[in-house]
């Protein structure tokens, strides 16, 4: 199971991002663990400057916006 972390200090876009990922995963029938990371030190360790950021299994794949559907699908299917 993929472990997906949504990095952000709690703004609305971060909540949207987490929800989007859950939704797409649900539709594709892929089981994922989505976790919101709000700790500044943890976000810093990923070197993310614009939130929301997304990390999959400890690797940063996206930052700066709510990812679109196509992107989310490609992460989940990979």
């Amino acid at each position, binding site marked *: 199971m993929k472990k997906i972390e949504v990095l952000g200090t709690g703004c609305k876009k971060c909540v949207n991002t987490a929800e989007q990922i859950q939704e797409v995963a649900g539709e594709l029938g892929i089981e994922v663990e989505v976790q919101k990371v709000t700790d500044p030190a943890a*976000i810093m360790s990923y*070197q993310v400057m*614009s939130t929301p950021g997304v990390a999959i299994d400890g690797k940063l794949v996206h930052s700066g916006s709510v990812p679109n559907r196509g992107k989310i699908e490609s992460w989940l299917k990979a």
Partner: protein
Amino acid sequence: MLEVFTWLADWLIYGLAGLDPESKLGTSLHFFVEDTTKIFALLVVVIYVIALMRASLNLERVRHYIQQKPRLAGYGLGAGFGAITPFCSCSSIPLFLGFTSAGIPLGITMAFLFTSPIINEVAVIMLWSLLGWEFTLVYIAIGMAVGIGGGMILDVLKGERWLKDFAAKAYQQATSTSHGDEPAPEAPVLTLKDRHEFARDELKEIVGRIWKWVIIGVGLGAALHGFVPDGWFADNLGSGQWWNVPTAVFAGLPLYSNATGVIPVMESLILKGLPVGTTLAFCMSTVAASFPEFIMLKQVMQWRLLATIFVILLANFMIVGWLINLLSPWLFSGFH
């Protein structure tokens, strides 16, 4: 070209609704319709065009660019990028840590964060259309000066002593290893379609976030415009006593607005005879010293640093207010 909006308001309020142009309600509503339609039309055009241009600007490249430059230039660049970079306040903590952990001095990072809420394309459009280009230029100069000045003072005081431990450690690590040889992060290659999509999303996002502020701000401005007699402030507060400026700064503190909401109010305050410097001091205090922002910065700073920043900001606003009041006879000879 902008007279279209005056005509529209004339037609709607005095024509269709049949209100008397001399009445308080008539002037207020006219002001409201003219300003909201004008501002929204300008916002849509300008936000889209600017977003097209800055689609390829990202913070990693900004950070790299600032790192390469001498420290003194860094303050100006920090404030300058703070003004032009699209930026939401919820990103201030990651941005702060991203800059700090790259060894960028605290003062330069803070110059960015100070200037960011004061100057942005939305504020500039509104100022330009409501108060004219002279005023807009003065506002931009002041916003930059508050950021640059505030940042420099912080570094003179060695503010980085009062960072939270993990942030201080990251900063020390970065400054003890050598920097400046890394290649610049590559600019993303964008097609026109990518740029259009980015600009469209930005437009939706920004207008979605600020439309309420425009309505509230212009509504308040309109009420002041119609119901407070011309020259009321000058008659009742006196003009230019030294304590007017600190009073305005403290009055602005508990009010939390962004630049969009406060600029239409500024227009009315000035027209009603509040001195320009006093008005600007009030505006800056409302926009740039907000408690929610300070609470957020607490995650990376000790109380001492927060308090220092707060005092520096307040002092800066007062200096700005006094200075502009003193200079305004020369700066705005064509005003009023």
